[in-house]
């Protein structure tokens, strides 16, 4: 047990216990002619961090609103801890915590009062909610701002307090919708650490994010959702295993990337060449021999400044599975969500 009375499982962060806590079957939601969520099914195991990845408009937030009871599905079922709450979401709301994509606490209340109020909504008595609020403010490094109005907090502080408000009633599962969007790097890192700590204390986490590296770092399993449908659900390990079968070498040089790719394509037709902002990337199922490629480019008048092996990432897997450029997805989200990282 830890200081908050929660079980501390002896297991790595993000991996579940194999016992389903959230079961979703054939969930569908339409808005007029648009099918926002199209028959998705998945389970989230107790104790795991489950990542839900997809571009803007893929159906992530719609799914969360259904799972938390703010929206009704057109068909399908949702079970939390074995309790069917499709038609009666109130039945499970004491078991779930929500951190929405926008911090939605009360700007006129102080950080401490916001936490106490959120605890009161779950029927927690005065002394207990005061203790929990103080403990969370300390855990989230917000004790110095406890008496300040929430409206005056920075974005990072707002996200931290919103997460604290989402867990003050000790939910079994916490839904985190884009927890680090629009905040600075240091705050995002701290929040990721807090998520990891929460999970290691036993809280199951359902995380939606468009930051693939964040999901890779935190999650045990990931579902990719595109246009309302889940295109792949697997453990991060299995997804990465697939990526490790590929060999990628990146070349940086002075010259035109398109001409470099044309040269390589003519001489080595079995290699796949693509341009990146830094230069070109050459990919093959077999190990790539760098020497002949460098010689070819230099003979063609292209001066190579760097050639290095690129380790495959979850982002590559995401691009391959969804056909969506992860960088474009991130930029699009940051434009709509505001802020930079």
């Amino acid at each position, binding site marked *: 047990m830890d200081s908050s009375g929660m079980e501390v499982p002896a297991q790595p962060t993000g991996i579940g216990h194999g016992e389903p806590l959230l079961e979703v079957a054939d969930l569908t939601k339409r808005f007029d002619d648009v099918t926002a969520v199209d028959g998705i099914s998945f389970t989230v195991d107790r104790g795991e961090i489950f990542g839900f990845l997809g571009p803007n408009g893929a159906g992530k937030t719609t799914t969360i609103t259904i799972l938390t009871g703010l929206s009704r599905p057109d068909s399908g079922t949702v079970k939390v801890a074995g309790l069917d709450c499709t038609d009666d979401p109130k039945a499970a*709301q004491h078991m779930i915590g929500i951190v929405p994509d926008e911090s939605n606490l009360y700007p006129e209340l102080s950080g401490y009062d916001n936490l106490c109020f959120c605890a009161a*909504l779950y*029927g927690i008595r005065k002394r207990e909610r005061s203790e929990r609020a103080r403990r969370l403010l300390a855990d989230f490094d917000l004790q110095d701002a406890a008496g300040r109005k929430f409206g005056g907090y920075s974005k990072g502080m707002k996200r931290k307090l919103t997460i604290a408000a989402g867990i003050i009633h000790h939910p079994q599962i916490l839904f985190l919708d884009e927890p680090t969007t629009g905040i600075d790097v240091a705050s995002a890192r701290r929040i990721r650490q807090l998520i990891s700590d929460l999970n290691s204390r036993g809280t199951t986490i359902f995380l939606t994010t468009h930051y693939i590296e964040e999901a890779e770092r935190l999650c045990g399993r990931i579902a990719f959702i595109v246009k309302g449908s889940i295109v792949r659900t697997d453990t991060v390990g299995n997804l990465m295993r697939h990526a490790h079968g590929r060999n990628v070498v990146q070349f940086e040089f002075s010259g035109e990337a398109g001409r470099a790719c044309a040269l390589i394509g003519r001489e080595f037709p079995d290699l796949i060449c693509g341009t990146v902002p830094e230069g070109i990337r050459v990919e093959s199922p077999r190990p790539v021999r760098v020497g002949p490629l460098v010689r070819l480019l230099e003979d063609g008048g292209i001066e190579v400044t760097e050639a290095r092996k690129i380790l495959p990432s979850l982002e590559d897997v995401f691009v391959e599975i969804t056909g969506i450029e992860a960088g474009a997805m991130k930029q699009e989200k940051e434009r709509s969500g505001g802020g930079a990282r």
Partner: protein
Amino acid sequence: MRKWIAFWNILLKDMRSYYLKPPNISWGLLFPLVWVAMFLIRSGLGLEMLPELLPGLVSLSILFGTTSVLAVTVTFEKKGRSFERLLLAPFSLELLMLAKTSGAILFGTANAFVPILAAVILTDLPGMNWAMLIPATLLIAVSSTFLGLLIAVSAREVFEAQTFSNFFRFPMIFLCGLFFPVASLPVFLRPLSYALPLTYGNDILRGSIAGTSLMPLWLDFPVLLGSCALLFYFSINIINRKWIT
């Protein structure tokens, strides 16, 4: 017990955040007093007219006091998404909306007692029936609050809610017999008067203050109660249909 902790804290938060703020307190005190002074000066008849004017002033104070604040406590919170926190809490929507409206009911009732206390201080009001006046005041506050709630949940923006409120409030001053009897209205407008709960509430006030009610109490009270239930039912229905899509 747990849900009542939530209920009490929602009421307390709204009281601190909205009703006990200086602009609302000054509105609650000044608005009824200004109306009292204005009518007395305009009529030129002096304090003996107060029992005649008091039912209308009480009704008016409640109507404006309750409907003005709900655009903020409900529509504004919905727009800012903090209302989602309440919708996600583990208690019924009905209890949540009762908690959100109880502050307005108390505020409206307190507003009503400003002209009543002023009248008690200025005249002795010999025929006052407190046993009728207090429940009538409370019921008018409930029905006006639920009317404000219906408007607030029907609107998307705060300004929209305020515009809708005025669309209802100002005609009600003339249609509900606050300052001249419904019988003096054109015949085609009277059905509209009898469809508005404030007409019945004001009639009870007339009976309890001046002894001049036009309709029987056995009609006034049930109609007022029924209106409260209907307005609340429609509001919950709209939230269920539009907010939990």
